[in-house]
């Protein structure tokens, strides 16, 4: 795209793109700003943007009123656990499909994708029932397992598209030099696959963190992650905009930052490699 453009044209593009960008980002910016206001300033008419007395009292209030640390820990445990478990199951599967393809590989991959399309609400009650029987309702382990299963197809697919880009000749050379299957995976494949595995990990952590059907329906007090913590603010009580904003900021900040690092993987992961 080395086309010559006039400075004027470039300036125009810049203004247009920044205007649209800021407009789209505005709700998030507004939430972050409001989280530093007092409740009275938060609903001031006309609204104040930057020139107010900044305060961190809302963060203290949120921390005190509800056990934020507990929800945060649940989110980390569930998102992290489901991603790691998923990787443990998916890495061998993706490896075998990428390097030892059989005539059925394509069908298996597409079938895995098809399980992702299963509408969650269609199986809500059976899962609910199974969870009660197995004592998994409102436990972190139970939710970790469910999120691992719903994201497993994406993990397998992402890893598969990354692994396929690793030249098979290198593996064959290692094999010729007498490397065992174990050595091959451990010393040859893994170092080359680390970037792909890292991006898969990142994207799936984000997806699990934001998942809001199963986390709302399978947890109560003990295992509820941040999605449920925020949902508890849906019945307003007096002045609460600033506190809602503080809680929201605390729930999205870590993931927003991770998300910015993984935007390229997002395209690859969520389109199952169909757009590169």
């Amino acid at each position: 795209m080395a086309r010559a453009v006039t400075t004027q044209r470039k300036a125009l593009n810049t203004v247009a793109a920044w205007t649209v960008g800021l407009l789209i980002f505005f709700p998030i910016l507004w939430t972050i700003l409001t989280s530093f206001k007092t409740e009275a300033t938060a609903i001031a008419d006309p609204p104040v943007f930057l020139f107010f007395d900044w305060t961190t009292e809302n963060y203290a209030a949120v921390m005190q009123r509800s056990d934020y640390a507990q929800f945060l820990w649940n989110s980390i445990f569930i998102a992290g656990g489901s991603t790691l478990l998923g990787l443990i199951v998916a890495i061998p599967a993706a490896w075998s499909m990428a390097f030892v393809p059989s005539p059925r590989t394509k069908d298996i991959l597409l079938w895995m994708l098809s399980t992702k399309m299963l509408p969650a609400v269609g199986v809500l009650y059976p899962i609910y029932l199974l969870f009660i029987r197995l004592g998994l309702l409102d436990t972190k382990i139970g939710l970790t397992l469910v999120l691992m299963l719903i994201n497993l197809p994406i993990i397998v697919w992402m890893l598969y598209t990354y692994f396929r880009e690793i030249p098979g000749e290198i593996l064959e050379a290692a094999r010729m030099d007498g490397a065992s299957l174990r050595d091959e995976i451990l010393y040859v494949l893994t170092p080359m696959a680390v970037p792909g595995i890292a991006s898969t990990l990142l994207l799936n952590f984000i997806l699990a963190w934001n998942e809001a059907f199963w986390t709302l329906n399978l947890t109560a007090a003990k295992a509820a992650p941040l999605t449920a913590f925020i949902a508890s603010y849906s019945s307003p009580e007096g002045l609460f905009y600033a506190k809602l904003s503080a809680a929201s900021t605390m729930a999205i900040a870590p993931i927003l930052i991770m998300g910015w690092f993984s935007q390229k993987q997002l395209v690859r992961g969520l389109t199952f490699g169909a757009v590169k």
Partner: protein
Amino acid sequence: MATQHARSAARLMLAPAVILLLGWMLVPLTMTLVFSFKKYLPLRGGDLGWVGFENYVRFVTSSAFWPSIWATLIIVGGVLVITIAFGIALALLLDQPMWGQGIVRILVIAPFFVMPTVSALVWKNMFMDPVNGLFAHLWQFFGAEPIQWLSQASLPSIIMIVSWQWLPFATLILLTAIQSLDSEQIEAAEMDGAPWRSRFIYIILPHLSRAITIVLLIQTIFLLGIFAEIFVTTQGSFGTRTLTYLIYQRVLESQNVGLGSAGGIYAVILANIIAIFLMRIVGKNLDA
């Protein structure tokens, strides 16, 4: 190429993933299928025996069924039109040379990483609240009567919230596709005197067709299942009860598992029809 040994090892490594997903798919789905043929009221007697297709008939003949189909279609359709139209425009804009392109990209992509419960609550309270919301202030500033967004304009409000969440995804995919377009082709057309409109219709749009299809299918699958956005805003009232939400209410709120399960099977069939198209496109890509 691969030895017999490698092949059996490969099968072994594939097995856990396949078994897990097979179980995840078959066990609950079979249970739903069984429940759908039963009168099953957990709080009022439990399993009351087989009833044949009664639940299926009752689900589609209930007065809530067609409105829920409409609500689903309007929300999914509205979000698709908005995200794809604006996504193309935004992708074209972001592809232009400018200062601070990286930062603008970051700003545009951000909403996708906001959890649905947060975005729904922020929009509901801080923007759409008829008294204290920013929109109310804005309307008043221009001397207009503030709108009761989530009750008077419930469907457009939900569409707005969900579109805001999905616009980044559409933009990012379309931008990725535009960047793979051969710029020489455009330049050649430009030199031949093709006006902007024909360059867009005859070169850019055909190039994007595959990406658009992908956005369409993937978003449809996710949008059919939107839940949190309705759960924390209207709870399905004011005409926002989608098929997903209707099934949810049948199962968990009215505790009629048989009826809800029949609805669930309808949803599964619907999702499968869309999935078949998506798989064809993705499958083609596997051979390339």
